[in-house]
């Protein structure tokens, strides 16, 4: 191990070098000497349209070619005008090579793929294509049939867990839009995942409630509280209070608008008084109550 390491650090002169390596080393040395003497000739930059440019330059690599697509087109046009053949055809590697197979009962030849394919098995002619998953926005949303607009839901997680809220609608991301209403139990309009909610049998007819159209998933997108300090700004001497979330005026007004309508619906309920108390109270389990045996 040690000897090999040493060998790697200092090339052994006694060791035979490959001829190509010797050549490149000599070139390197010559260049070094020329630079020291100040006689190094700088290679003129190739102007792709000067006429000295060759197709080889353009086809240096896939990306190179892509970047120089306009140049390539111009060259093509120039070549066409001059009546020269465009060196356009590239050689592609063959994907399948027929190889002779020795042995008596081996069918003599066999088709061999030069590039190994994904999910390749020798017996498979065409590898199975896996279906692409697609974008999240195109996913199919499955929302429980019990979760219809107007359903009273019991929240199971988060800051509002144990509270009861009104389901307003389901959003494009598959999340539920709910509201307390805010006066009753301090739940603002917010999004919840259906898995974090128990749907109850109790439903309100909120068909008359009009929810502003701009209330969608984007509306609830979080904004950064902290901004990076600018370079020019000097740090203040005093300890600054950390910024906390404050709802915008727009959100407050929207909340009032929707809640007023929902409260109107509740007022029309025949058990109005109980309903107000119901929504403002918390859900809990007592002795001998098991959620899996209960109806909601």
């Amino acid at each position, binding site marked *: 191990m040690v000897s090999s390491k040493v060998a790697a650090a200092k090339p052994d002169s006694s060791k035979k070098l490959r001829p190509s390596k010797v050549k490149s080393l000599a070139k390197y040395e010559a260049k070094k000497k020329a630079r020291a003497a100040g006689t190094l000739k700088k290679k003129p930059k190739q102007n792709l349209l000067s006429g000295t440019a060759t197709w080889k330059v353009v086809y240096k690599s896939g990306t190179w070619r892509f970047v120089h697509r306009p140049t390539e087109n111009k060259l093509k046009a120039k070549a066409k005008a001059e009546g020269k053949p465009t060196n356009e055809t590239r050689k592609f590697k063959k994907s399948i090579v027929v190889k002779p197979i020795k042995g008596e009962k081996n069918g003599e030849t066999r088709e061999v793929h030069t590039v190994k394919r994904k999910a390749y098995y020798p017996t498979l002619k065409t590898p199975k294509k896996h279906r692409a998953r697609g974008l999240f926005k195109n996913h199919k949303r499955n929302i429980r049939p019990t979760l219809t607009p107007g359903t009273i839901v019991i929240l199971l997680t988060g800051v509002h867990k144990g509270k009861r809220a009104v389901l307003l609608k389901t959003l494009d991301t598959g999340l539920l839009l709910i509201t307390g209403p805010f006066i009753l139990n301090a739940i603002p309009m917010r999004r919840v995942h259906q898995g974090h909610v*128990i749907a*109850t*049998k*109790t439903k309100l007819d909120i068909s008359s409630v009009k929810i502003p159209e701009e209330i969608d998933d984007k509306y609830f997108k979080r904004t950064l509280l902290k901004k990076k300090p600018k370079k020019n700004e000097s740090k203040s001497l005093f300890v600054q209070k950390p910024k906390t979330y404050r709802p915008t005026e727009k959100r407050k007004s929207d909340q009032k608008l929707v809640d007023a309508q929902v409260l109107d619906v509740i007022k029309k309920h025949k058990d109005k008084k109980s309903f107000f108390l*119901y929504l403002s109270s918390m859900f809990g389990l007592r002795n001998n109550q098991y959620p899996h045996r209960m*109806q909601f």
Partner: protein
Amino acid sequence: MPFKRFVETGRVVYVVDGPYKGKICSIVDCIDQKTVLVDGPESGVPRSKMRIAQIHLTKFKINFPYNGSTRTVRQAWIKADLNKLWIQSRWAEKAANREKRASLGDFERFKLKRARKVRNKIRTNVYKALFNKTYCPKKKTVKTAKA
């Protein structure tokens, strides 16, 4: 105290487990130590064998001969007016209440809780008023809860 209810032909039983849970039927025959042949033509229980562990014996008994056919069982059932007798019993009433309570939704449960609170307050107030009247008519009275 001697036993009064026996596993016998004609004994009406309450099914507590299995697909016919909550229904009544009558024992027709004893198959072995653990199973009996039952029939409930008027209660929706088909003639079949049933484990004794999944039935409870009631105080009712109808009269029909041992191993009687469904027809004879039905006749005896109607003659005894068993469906009516069962509905009137406390057992049936409690069973119905239990079922009703189990089927309550969240909002109904909440309303029940509130109703019970109100009732209990009224009841304690009445009790305390009576207590004060009889045991300490002139002394300090026990405070009553706000209704």
